[in-house]
């Protein structure tokens, strides 16, 4: 096992105001079979402030599936496949080499070309180019990392995606959206009352969340690009636990009126309230199955909280999903629909459990004692969750096979309520 620390410093510029929101990412463990790969600095890289090769290297490294080779001692640093002297890279024991070049287009945008090359076969596996504005350099690098990851592992990457989380700093509650590597954190909400349960719309353009700013929990939908925030559920009592339907049209929410929490669906723009569950106990934490047919949820109808499912249209039969353990809550699906993660009370420790829905086998994945808010990466490979170090909250992630672990922490304050969003288009 090895531990290496990546400090994620924000670039100095207009984002310096949220410099405190940079997540520190630390990786522990890794897959036993790591592909040795070299990412060569891109040609003309000095013309821009973002180091594309470093961003790509860091992404690949953090996946735990690659061993990144140091290129600084190499006699030649090629910027395209034709310049590669293969014996030099074979001597470094590289299986794959990434080369690239940056040029400026007549309209001021940048053109990024890159090749992923198989050293043994001495031929390119990928040859692509991207046109971008300089300010989107980081996201372009993440997209390149996704292409490389998919070509070499056969699994789609999830680097070009974003996460949401809440930071409590003093008495302020901030809802942040950041890139998957913790950079580019931007504050969506800054409130003196709690904000919980952020939930990404399936297209990544909106986030639903619960804000206590009116002295009670109310569900808002916030459009990221415009900052427009709209109350979508403000009924008598509590309004909480928003979850999007896969088509982005409906939201499952939890309402109480004067009684216990029950699940309803509403239009994502508000209104058209429909009842889904009717019980005397607690029904909460709804999650739509990726096919949209089911709502999985937490209920204490059997005495202890367990996960159940029912038809998303409501009124149907309710059947129990979890049977091991006396406390299983917060169900969340993998986007491919094959797995369910939730929080189990394991002898006083609240840990992330993953249930394989094809064979119902359950595996405890996280090592904390107060872990919460699990959510899957868009490629269904990694689970992001909130954990606690002493009295301070931070975030962590674990690969679905438990082999690769990351810890994501803020320099200050308390971090919680994580949610991994969909891929950026």
């Amino acid at each position, binding site marked *: 096992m090895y531990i290496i620390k990546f400090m994620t410093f924000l670039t100095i510029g*207009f*984002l310096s*105001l949220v410099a405190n929101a940079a997540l520190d990412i630390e990786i522990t463990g890794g897959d036993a079979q790591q592909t040795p790969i070299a990412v060569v600095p891109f040609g003309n890289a000095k013309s821009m402030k973002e180091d594309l090769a470093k961003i790509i290297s860091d992404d690949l490294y953090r996946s735990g599936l690659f061993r990144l080779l140091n290129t600084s001692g190499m006699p030649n640093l090629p910027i395209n496949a034709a310049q590669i002297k293969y014996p030099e890279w074979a001597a470094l024991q590289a299986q794959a080499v990434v080369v690239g070049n940056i040029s400026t287009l007549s309209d001021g945008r940048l053109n990024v070309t890159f090749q992923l090359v198989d050293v043994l076969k001495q031929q390119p596996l990928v040859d692509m180019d991207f046109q971008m504005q300089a*300010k*989107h350099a980081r*996201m372009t690098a993440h997209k390149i990392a996704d292409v490389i990851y998919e070509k070499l592992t056969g699994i789609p990457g999830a680097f070009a995606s974003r996460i949401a989380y809440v930071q409590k700093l003093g008495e302020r509650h901030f809802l942040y*959206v950041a*890139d998957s590597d913790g950079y580019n954190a*931007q*504050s*969506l*909400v*800054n*409130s*003196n009352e*709690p904000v*919980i*349960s952020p939930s990404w719309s399936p297209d990544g*353009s909106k986030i639903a969340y619960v*804000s*206590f700013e*009116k*002295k009670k*929990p109310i569900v808002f939908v*916030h459009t*990221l*690009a*415009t*900052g427009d925030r709209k109350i979508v559920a403000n009924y*008598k*009592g*509590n309004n*909480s*636990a928003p979850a999007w339907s896969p088509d982005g049209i409906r939201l499952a929410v*939890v309402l*109480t009126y*004067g*009684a*216990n*929490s029950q699940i309803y669906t509403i239009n994502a723009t508000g209104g058209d309230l429909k009842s889904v569950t009717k019980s005397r*106990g*607690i029904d*909460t*934490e709804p999650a739509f199955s990726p096919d949209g047919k089911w709502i999985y949820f*937490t209920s204490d109808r059997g005495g202890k*909280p367990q996960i159940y499912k029912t038809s998303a249209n409501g009124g149907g039969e309710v059947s129990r999903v979890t049977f091991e353990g006396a*406390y299983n*809550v*917060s169900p969340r699906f993998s986007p491919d629909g094959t797995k369910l993660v939730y*929080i189990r*009370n394991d002898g006083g420790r*609240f840990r992330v459990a993953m249930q394989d829905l094809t064979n119902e086998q359950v595996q405890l994945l996280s090592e904390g004692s*107060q872990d*919460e*808010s699990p959510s899957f990466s868009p490629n269904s490979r990694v689970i992001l969750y909130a954990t606690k170090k002493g*009295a*301070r909250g931070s975030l962590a992630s674990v690969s679905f096979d438990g082999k690769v672990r990351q810890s994501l922490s803020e320099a200050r304050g308390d971090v*919680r*309520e994580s949610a991994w969003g969909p891929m950026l*288009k």
Partner: protein
Amino acid sequence: MKNATTIYSKLLIAAAISMLLVACKSTPMKDDAAVEDKSAGSTSTADGSDVKGAVIDGSSSDGSMNELNDPNNILSKRNIYFDFNSDAIRAEFRPNVEAHAQYLQAHTNAKVTLQGNADERGTREYNLSLGQRRSVAVKTALNLLGVSDSQIETVSYGEENANPACADDDCFQADRRVEIVYPNE
């Protein structure tokens, strides 16, 4: 009756003024807002990498209702505590609930909010529901003592007001409570 209305509107005005004052006091946050506007002003993009935010400052009003706040009056005892994962009202808190039931029946214009809370163990949303279940338990007790539904609102803060430094049950116990709040006081 007319008198009561006047007092009410005075209280409302006082509340409005105090909210204004708080809004002014919170000007440090304006710096953030201004800076955020700057970032938000950058053109939004097709890949959605820019986001726009909101800064929220709210505040509750404060005033006085002597009978409710007199430390020698049981009505000033506003917390009902619960066992772990339980919504059962313990016998020691029956007198508190009964005193508030009497007050609410004597003051039919008074409204009360029962604010449920949980300790931080478990998930925030489940604890929000658990806090709600506790507030419903107190509401049911008040209903049985003759208080009208129209006077009671139940709401939950879940674990949002819990002490993050708790390590033992004495500490967790203090977080598992329903607070009886009179919104107009």
